């Protein structure tokens, strides 16, 4: 019987959540609220009641995110500053995008998106190098690149939003209206989701896998821009002119991003499982942890995808006269949902773990991909504005 003094300190703080926040946390909240009120006052003529609600709702979500995940603050501030700089440089004239040096080469939406593309690809290469060489420094560089790419992607979307209004007040809209724009959203969303896990599990080896799928998305963005000239801002068809787009599409892409992340974790899992003492086993977290992150990603994706589908149904009821029409996109959303519902049941109720679920998550990405891109390419229907 050993007798030792209790060494565990009571680090578990029981003060209520709000009281635990520091001055910096409150400054962050203040900053977001101030920015939101300013945006509201500046642009209120373009917003209806719902959109004002969405604006303040997203501000609240951003404050909460910044409290729970501190790097979000620096990220948001960087995005805000660069976007404001671009808006200031434009000063109400779209033509300055060609004449102003900073806009033309850095922060006009198209330039920012190109920077994002380059940085994501570079980050992918660096992550892979870090994984193989076991270089911690390279890993940090890769993380920094991923953060910068995400900043540039977000700036690209923000500035694109502004540019659409500069093209004409009746053309202006949030840039989540076609395949080109949502692919950027997809890349940024997947990267940000990955970065939360990178921090939480303090492991950068997963980045080599996740950034690969982001690079594939970047490849599509580049092809779509250069081959199809899809980067031009297009006005909205009447059916899309609704506040619903602002919540339905982003919610969907949290889902898609999380599913993509889970699939890449599945790939990592399967590769590592083959060689239990190989390189990957030395760099990646344990199989159990990979399995657990995979579950968390799918749970998150499923929750958001559920919300997105419900919002989509409500929008459909308002725009097309019925909350469900068995339109190909709707049906594929259901298929994706059923697929992950089955996955979750297998894991939570049947107690499946590991290999079969990793395979299933990878197949799930293809199902998701078809719902996201394939439907627009191969099937016609009400969602045809997203077509290739």
């Amino acid at each position, binding site marked *: 019987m*050993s007798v030792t003094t*209790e060494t565990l300190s009571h680090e578990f703080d029981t003060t209520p959540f709000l009281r635990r926040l520091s001055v910096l946390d409150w400054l962050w909240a203040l900053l977001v609220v101030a920015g939101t009120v300013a945006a509201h006052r500046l642009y209120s003529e373009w917003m209806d009641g719902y959109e004002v609600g969405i604006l303040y709702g997203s501000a609240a979500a951003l404050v909460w995110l910044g409290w729970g995940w501190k790097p979000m603050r620096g990220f948001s501030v960087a995005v805000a500053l660069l976007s404001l700089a671009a808006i200031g440089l434009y000063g109400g004239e779209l033509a300055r995008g060609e004449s102003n040096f900073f806009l033309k080469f850095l922060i006009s939406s198209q330039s920012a998106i190109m920077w994002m593309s380059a940085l994501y690809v570079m980050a992918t290469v660096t992550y892979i190098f870090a994984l193989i060489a076991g270089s911690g420094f390279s890993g940090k560089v890769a993380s920094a690149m991923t953060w910068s790419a995400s900043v540039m992607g977000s700036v690209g979307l923000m500035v694109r939003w502004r540019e659409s209004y500069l093209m004409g007040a009746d053309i202006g809209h949030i840039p989540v209206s076609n395949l080109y724009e949502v692919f950027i959203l997809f890349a940024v969303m997947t990267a940000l989701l990955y970065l939360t896990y990178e921090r939480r599990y303090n492991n950068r080896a997963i980045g080599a896998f996740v950034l690969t799928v982001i690079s594939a998305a970047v490849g599509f963005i580049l092809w779509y821009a250069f081959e199809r000239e899809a980067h031009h801002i297009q006005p909205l068809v009447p059916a899309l002119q609704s506040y619903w787009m602002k919540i339905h599409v982003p919610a969907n892409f949290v889902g898609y991003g999380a599913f993509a992340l889970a699939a890449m974790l599945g790939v990592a899992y399967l590769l590592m499982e083959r060689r239990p003492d190989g390189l990957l086993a030395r760099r990646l977290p344990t199989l159990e942890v990979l399995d657990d992150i995979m579950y968390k990603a799918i749970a998150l994706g499923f929750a958001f995808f559920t919300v997105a589908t419900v919002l989509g149904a409500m929008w459909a*009821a308002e725009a*097309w006269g019925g909350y469900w029409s068995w339109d190909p996109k709707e049906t594929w959303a259901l298929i994706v949902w*059923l*697929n992950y519902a*089955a996955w979750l049941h297998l894991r939570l109720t049947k107690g499946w773990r590991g290999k079969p679920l990793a395979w299933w998550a990878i197949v799930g990405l293809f199902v998701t991909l078809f719902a996201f891109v394939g439907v627009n390419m191969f099937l016609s229907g009400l969602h045809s504005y997203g077509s290739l």
Partner: protein
Amino acid sequence: MSQTEKTGRRQRRSGAVLLEFLGSMNLAITLLVAIAIASVVGTVLQQNEPYNNYIMKFGPFWFEVFKSLGLFDIYAAPWFLLLLGFLLISTSVCVYRNTPAIIRDMRHFRLGVQEKSLRAFHHRDEWRSPDPAAPLADTLAKRLRRHGYRVRHRQFEGYQMVAAMRGGTSRLGYILSHLSIVVICIGGLLDGNLPLRLAEWRGELKVETRDLAVSQIPPESTLGTDNSSFRGSVTIPEGSRADFVFLGMRDGYLLQKLPFTVALEAFRIEHYPSGMPKSFESDLVIIDEARGEPLRKTIAVNHPWVYKGYAIYQSSFSDGGSRLQLQAWPLDRPATEPLRIDAVVNESSRLSTPRGEYGLEIIDFKPFNVFPVEEAGSKKFNNYGPSVVFKLRAANGEAREYVNYQMPLMVEGRPFLLSGMRATPAEEYRYLHIPLDSDGGIKRFLRFLALAQEKGRISQVAHQQALNELGLTEADPLYRDFTSSMSSLVGLFVEHGIDALVELAEKNVPEEKRNEALSSYIKVVQGVLGTLYVELLREEGVDVAAGIDEQQALYFDEVLNAFSLLGPYGSPLLLRLQQYEHVEASGLQITRAPGQNIVYLGCVMLMAGVFFMFYLHHRRLWLRIEEREGQTHILFAAAAHRERGDFDSEFARLRGDLRHSSSAVLSRI
């Protein structure tokens, strides 16, 4: 044991087995996957198209097979509904079987748990404290409450028991999310057309497949206002009204009566510079006899009008019967003055032409046509003015579709009048380019055509060429051959186009000499028509003594190009749009969906349920506090539902805090 008792038990047993099967996870997962796969089929195979399209695509055999499997309306097929029904039952059974246990689990703190069981927990700890048990139990209970736990504290004989839990709502998430599926299915069932299908199956309802006027639709294809759920559409021209909608069903429709009348006062549409619609809206009036006063409201896309449970949506727009004034120029022996035709879009009329009686069906009218043009590297949009789409139906029932543009189009700096033709809607239009003369009209073209169709004039030209250029005399045997083949070549070309000359060459000339022959045919035709062209110019008073200028030469080539396509063009007339009065029609969708709010309730339950399940964690803690040998022994155990690695750290922190609060001095006995 009596026989009845035995069967009773067996029944009970088979009932339990059935319940077991219906509630089994394997069945649930199989159903989820099966429905997903069936749904894929429905997206790959376009649903609810006209049956003819399917017959063309799959042939009559597979058409029948697919039809009997319900693949053309898969989401209403009995077997698909059966799958959904099974999912509903399976989910219901799951909820039914698990709910009591879950509720018990959420409410009970399990104060009576045995010490032995606690020791078997993965998360557990023990320590000792000098403090007496009862106040210590109070202190620790308070501590747990500060951590957000709900706490029960009971004194047993010889020991204190503190049981705590948090996140029980996550178990509620299970009930909510699964019950929501049932709720959504019930709502969806209320809004589905199952009653209509049953009525049809009983023979009380018949899907109408003929194209009838509303007043002609028989009662067995008409639904009264007692039909509680439907989704129909109707097109109302400006200034008109309707008290019905059409429900599309398979290859036909049903007429649904409304308890009120909807009138369209005005329709407005705005366009972007690209010609794409920017917004469209309808000023509607509802005339409801039960109400008296008419109600007015403007609806637009995304902004429906809900009246007495009927939702009216702006879904599309079309031509509502624009009145057109057309000029008809006969293409056989063209006259100098055209016929005037007054036509209405969506209506048809009879035309008598030299080629017999034709039916003219005006299909569509567009007041403008915007197409992108590439200009100096940048995209611009050009408006090509109004267009009219019509069909000309010959007496034998064959029809060709035409699209005619009102305004001339510039091609390489030269003005043309455009008319497109196609034999079936699946084809692309082939365009006839008619060159405009120096007056900007088509009169010279038509005069030229008339000349070219005059057999006498052609023979005359042939005669002169035989005499002047070949030096033949009328008595020469070659003379007859030469002039008659010349006339027939020109006749063929003018009547059937260049294709006829190609055919002729293929028929009469061996392959290696065909190209040569064809070019000599063309030369002959060009020669004859060229002579005629000069004569025409001279007749028009143009000075051609010094030959014709470049513009006139170009015009000649363009006319020849047009002539060569007149055969395939296949119309006895050339229609030109003169004036129009645009009438628009608004496409409305009117629905009644009493299940909508039930579905939404289900959706809210689903979203709440999913988040509760994933983001709240059900955790239980127990503290068994016992005084033994002058010291207080504390046994701390914890259980997390669906235990995950995450709980480890929380447990460690809780343990530290509790030990600290109980002034623990001794660790791990």
